[in-house]
């Protein structure tokens, strides 16, 4: 290690940031997209765009479940919402274990044929587990720890940040202006960065620190949750009995919530004497992610339990994860999270770029070493942008009846990303590689509304005319991102090397 405190902090910031920077950029950018996950999913399912808000026919959903899954042990009905207009039913068969899902027209209960897509959930899974299941959660957790360390060490080493709070000097040296951009994005959003990283870790405390659950709940997190949420657990009797009206139970549950709306209904052991119905409230008007619940006897309709999330520890935890999940409906905060997430991504990207710029300007390290880092910077920062755009394109271009369509969309994403990585490694001239990939991403994003115009009936001319901002927002944001990336690529072209600064400023200002 190094001599002084600042030097050792500098060492940790530089190398921790370098090794985990790429991973953190990917996590931050996919997380930023996840802010609008439901909007993206909706955009990616044009078959649902004809739905208009209407009274929900819960009974029709129950009838569909009784028809499709009479033997299932669990039924779920997810009610529509302005971010998700469709009614979703799903069930789990005891013997098969596989969860099945259908999307319904909320007014009539008829099954809608929707193209296979992961939609925004693709970015969501990527964000927290990189599509590597449990292993990915561990990797993301490690990255989050490094992020916290990098934030703390960053404050120590860039100690002039408050003196230079408003300093951004694009005319100064390349390294200076990039460092200013890195510091400005880091310091201004420091509260956001700390909170979002910490709360991200808190969500998975039971994976990262399983000791308590292991000792008291035989390692089963579900057991703990059942106790905390005071779930009513009744065994199947085997005696058939008819199910009470779900619509009536939902109405009665709503009385408990003065103004709250229902998010979903779960029926356990449908058709059995011991059927139980959980009606769960949408946590859309509060920071704390507590979903109030009313549990009914599914046969008699008696209230078995009214749960509203008791206990200060549970409330604290719920507020922390609520700040991260952003499930409450608050349009301004949602957009602010989106911009703050973009800024975080820019901060991380500028950090990785600085590593190269610093060494290139001082000529201290050999060429091949920073060449590798530079290639990785291009592949991760520009390449990911190209891949995200390609994912949107693949959603419109793959025929809607291809088997395993959702998987093909994901394959397109990863294939394009790999191609970008290969391109970044093979291209000799780094500034050209930056420029080409940024232009590719810019073109893909900017032309997306045009592709949408050709392939769907819910393009900008339609959505803007009826002020459907959920759909128009996606197209308009893509246009803005495309325009900003063109600006960034243009600046790189203008001044061969120093140009990348514009990426940071333009990405931050992107979006409507």
């Amino acid at each position: 290690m190094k001599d002084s405190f600042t030097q050792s902090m500098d060492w940790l910031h530089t190398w921790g940031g370098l090794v985990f920077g790429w991973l953190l950029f990917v996590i931050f950018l996919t997380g930023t997209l996840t802010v609008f996950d439901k909007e993206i999913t909706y955009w990616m399912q044009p078959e649902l765009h004809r739905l208009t808000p209407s009274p929900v026919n819960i009974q029709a959903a129950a009838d569909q479940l009784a028809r499709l899954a009479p033997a299932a042990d669990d039924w779920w009905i997810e009610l529509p919402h302005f971010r998700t207009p469709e009614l979703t039913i799903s069930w789990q068969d005891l013997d098969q274990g596989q969860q099945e899902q259908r999307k319904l027209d909320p007014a009539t209960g008829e099954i809608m044929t929707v193209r296979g897509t992961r939609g925004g959930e693709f970015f969501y899974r990527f964000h927290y587990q990189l599509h590597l299941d449990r292993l990915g959660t561990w990797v993301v957790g490690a990255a989050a720890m490094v992020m916290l360390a990098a934030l703390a060490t960053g404050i120590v080493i860039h100690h002039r940040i408050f003196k230079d709070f408003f300093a951004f000097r694009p005319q100064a040296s390349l390294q200076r202006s990039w460092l200013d951009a890195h510091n400005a994005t880091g310091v201004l959003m420091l509260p956001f960065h700390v909170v979002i990283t910490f709360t991200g870790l808190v969500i998975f405390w039971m994976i990262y620190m399983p000791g308590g659950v292991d000792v008291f709940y035989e390692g089963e997190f579900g057991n703990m949750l059942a106790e905390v949420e005071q779930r009513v657990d009744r065994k199947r009797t085997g005696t058939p009995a008819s199910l009470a009206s779900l619509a009536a139970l939902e109405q009665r549950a709503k009385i408990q919530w003065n103004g709250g709306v229902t998010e979903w209904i779960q029926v356990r052991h449908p058709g059995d004497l011991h059927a139980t119905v959980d009606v769960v409230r949408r946590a859309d008007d509060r920071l704390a992610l507590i979903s109030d619940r009313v549990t009914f006897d599914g046969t008699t309709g008696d209230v078995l339990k009214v749960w509203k999330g008791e206990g200060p520890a549970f409330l604290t935890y719920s507020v922390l994860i609520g700040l991260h999940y952003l499930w409450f409906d608050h349009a301004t905060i949602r957009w602010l999270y989106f911009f703050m997430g973009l800024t975080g991504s820019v901060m991380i990207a500028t950090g990785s770029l600085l590593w190269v710029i610093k060494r290139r300007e001082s000529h201290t390290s050999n060429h091949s070493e920073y060449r590798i880092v530079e290639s990785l910077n291009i592949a991760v920062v520009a390449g990911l942008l190209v891949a995200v755009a390609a994912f949107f394109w693949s959603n419109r271009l793959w025929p809607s009846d291809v088997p395993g369509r959702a998987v093909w969309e994901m394959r397109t994403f990863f294939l394009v990303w790999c191609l970008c990585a290969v391109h970044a490694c093979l291209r000799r001239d780094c500034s050209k590689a930056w420029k080409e990939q940024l232009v590719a991403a810019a073109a893909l994003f900017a032309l997306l509304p045009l592709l949408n115009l050709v392939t769907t009936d819910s393009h900008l001319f339609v959505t803007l005319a009826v002020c459907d901002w959920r759909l128009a927002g996606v197209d308009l944001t893509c246009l803005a991102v495309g325009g900003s990336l063109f600006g960034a690529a243009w600046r790189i072209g203008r001044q061969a090397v120093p140009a990348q600064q514009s990426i940071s400023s333009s990405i931050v200002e992107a979006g409507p």
Partner: protein
Amino acid sequence: MMEIALCYNGLLALCLAMPKHYRQLFGRSSSDHVRWALKIAGWSAMAGSLLSAIASNGWSFGPVEWIGMTGVTGLVLIFLWPFQPQAAAILGALAVIAAATGVTI
């Protein structure tokens, strides 16, 4: 809009309270009195924007929105300032006018 106007102008005043940024806009040095006045005005406006955020969004969402708003308005200011300090100042005035005339977002 009141919240944005207060927030942006608060940051603008705090920025101008720093001698070098004051010189960038007005071309001359600031006196101690002006510096203090700008500091007080800046911090008061920031506090005002927090109160405004809480007044319109309640105690739970208000502070969350305010933190996001300071970050995003600050970002606009920081990246506009070196290119067009005059434009940054005009933007502040426009925000005040918009807030005063009751524009909402």
